């Protein structure tokens, strides 16, 4: 038995948002009596952390601590429209809508504070800890609880805001395919290292090294989760997954459960190392691009190319099963 090692490369880009646009998301925000800010959405968190990242966008824009922000989402009676969580659009579209709503609310908040401080709203700033203060004279300040109490019970104003993000719908030209298919593009380059058992055709993915350009990593730990989990899915797609193992010739033997539907277990995960680059997108929330989908993409061809590098077998059909590799090795040895 020989274990053959190889390295492969792939570089990709990925569009943010439904590629032809026309996919709006809205956000509403209002202040409670005691300085809370409720963000009302109908958007869905699939586990990527949408609720957390939109709270960050709101806190940053309002200039208030995270603890003051409440996200109330995914009820069509109470939340305004959102197209949905797909197409790497969540952070971009909803983040932008939340920022817009928070800006409007912030303007009212500063106006209310201005009246309480007997100052001009343009001269006020937030300190990030819950105070609105006079620029240049930080001792002249008012706590957000006092601002919202005043708004409710003294000034009779709603501290609230509305936000929407819409990229206008675009229609491809049928003859040429001319179209506007993205809001921005994120980028990735993956280097995969594999080991191939020349007797069984089993390919083990040893490592993935990635460079990702994501616009802005709004929450670095959650960006890392997308990179790492997506890298795993790429490995899974590359060497394991199919609902039709004998596609297209036969629909038989389709896996029906997690025994038959093969994916890497914890013992099959590669070592991953990644570096993030940031080229902020002009239309992204704080420059962020959508990266949830793309993280699974570059590993697949990188692994295919690494397998070729290891053993000279070119895999042109996904997934790269031990059988397909072994047949390739047999053909080379024939």
């Amino acid at each position, binding site marked *: 038995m020989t274990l053959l090692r190889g390295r492969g490369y792939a570089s990709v880009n990925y569009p943010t948002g439904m590629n032809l646009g026309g996919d709006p998301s809205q956000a509403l925000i209002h202040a409670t009596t005691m300085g809370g800010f409720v963000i009302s959405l*109908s958007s869905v968190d699939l586990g990527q952390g949408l609720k957390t990242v939109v709270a960050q966008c709101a806190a940053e824009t309002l200039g208030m601590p995270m603890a003051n922000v409440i996200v109330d989402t995914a009820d069509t009676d109470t939340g305004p429209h959102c197209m949905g969580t797909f197409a790497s659009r969540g952070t971009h579209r909803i983040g932008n809508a939340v920022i817009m709503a928070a800006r409007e609310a912030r303007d009212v908040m500063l106006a209310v504070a201005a009246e309480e401080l007997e100052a001009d709203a343009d001269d006020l700033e937030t300190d990030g800890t819950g105070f609105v203060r006079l620029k240049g004279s930080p001792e002249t300040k008012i706590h957000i609880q006092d601002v919202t109490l005043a708004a409710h019970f003294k000034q009779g104003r709603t501290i609230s805001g509305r936000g929407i993000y819409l990229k206008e719908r675009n229609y491809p030209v049928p003859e040429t395919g001319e179209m506007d298919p993205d809001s921005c593009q994120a980028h990735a380059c993956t280097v995969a290292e594999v080991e191939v058992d020349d007797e069984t055709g089993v390919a083990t993915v040893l490592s993935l090294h990635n460079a990702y350009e994501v616009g802005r990593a709004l929450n670095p730990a959650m960006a890392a989760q997308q990179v790492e989990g997506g890298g795993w899915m790429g490995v899974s797609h590359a060497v394991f997954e199919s609902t039709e193992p004998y596609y297209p010739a036969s629909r038989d033997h389709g896996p029906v459960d997690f025994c038959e539907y093969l994916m890497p277990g914890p013992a099959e995960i590669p070592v991953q190392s990644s570096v993030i680059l940031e080229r902020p997108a002009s239309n992204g929330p704080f420059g962020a691009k959508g990266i949830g989908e793309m993280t*699974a993409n570059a590993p697949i061809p990188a692994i295919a190319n690494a397998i070729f590098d290891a053993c000279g077998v070119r895999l*042109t059909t996904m997934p790269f099963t031990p059988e397909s590799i072994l047949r390739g090795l047999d053909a080379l040895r024939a």
Partner: protein
Amino acid sequence: MPRVNPIDTEYFKDERKAGDFTVIGTTVQRSDALGHVTGRTEFFEDRTFPDLAHVKIHRSAHHHARIDSVDCSEALKVPGVLRVITHRDVPSNWYVVLRLIGIEPNDEPVLAEDRVLYKGEPIVAVVADSEAAAIEGAARVRVGYTELPAVFDVEEALAPDAPVIKQAGTNYFVYEGHHARRLRFGDVERGFAQSDRIFEWRYSSAPIEHAPTETTGCIVVPQSSGRLLIHSNTQAAFFTLDNTALILDRPFTDLQVKGGTVGGGFGGKVDVMVEPLACIAATLTNRPVKFVYTREEEMQVSSPRAAERIYIKDGVTNDGRILARKVMLYVDAGAYSRHSPYGTTKACAHLPGPYTIPNVYADCHCVYTNRTPSSAMRGFGVTIADFALESQMDRIARALDLDPLQFRLRNAYRDGDLKAHRKVAEGTALIEVIQRAAALVGHELPDEYLALTSTTPRGEKA
């Protein structure tokens, strides 16, 4: 402590604003994590109702068949079975996924009428007061079929002698009069003629399941107001509401969707497959109704990522400049459209990959076959294309004896380049991620390649 990938701030220094954010760019604990680790996070199925009824489906046993008869009498005899639902009970028996984004025709019935186009297609829904009774009832529905010839291969489906499986008359989606979504840029034949070498290869994939740990499902609860409250794990609450209302032929304000916490989606919970039937069952029985896919349904009946077949023909100079790329791409939509026509357009938009190629020609076909309808999945339209494109890049580099990263850098798109779909590129960073990945693994690049940047215009006429 969470692992955080280092951010290399040396790149795009001028465009990154100095770190004057307070919350953005910092690792904040996930707001849902405490609920996850304590088991308190509430998923749709974590709600219990004392009089909950259950929906299970009798599905097609054949890949392609005419339905001659449907006999539900044995199902109705199962103790606990409350109702059977056939297409006659569905007010508007068409899924309208694509109508909402302006694409017709609606080609997929909610419950099969006179034919089935894939094995596993829903024919009868059984409502019962226990899950076991619903399963048993669904198993006892008897359907008489006349089998019809089935098509499983995307290219065979397009052959002139292939059986036509779609009532619209073609086994492919028609894009404004064309048999494929077209991309035409420059003159690809002239590009090939100018090239030193031509490389043409074929790539393909099999369907892939989203395989979320939580299967697709919903609980519909009739409200005292007469409205229906839908607890769902949909990825798109209003998408679900709008589609369901159209199928029910009820005012949109009759429905309320609650969700937002999903046990994995990956694109598999975008299609509106369970809510309409659960709403009909709830209306007919006036009870809360749960319809949740079994694991087998999730794996074999819910829409997968489409299989694709991709032919790429490239014309390249000996020193590694790609002058022309022609792509024939076939998306296996399975039996019905769902989002595949849209995904095929997305695949077309992605071509020719992140490279500036002056002559590009592509026909991207959305093809129907007698298998489970495919639909959106993470990387929709792009994942398989990237596999093909980047395998192609590796093979050409090897054939020309070029460094694989230098070959990519040579062709990488940059700001100001006109892409094949005629949008001027901006915000590009392919060059930089390649340079950084090379550094990460100690892959040495010559100075002239290290000096490249995405913001420096390409010094040639594209």
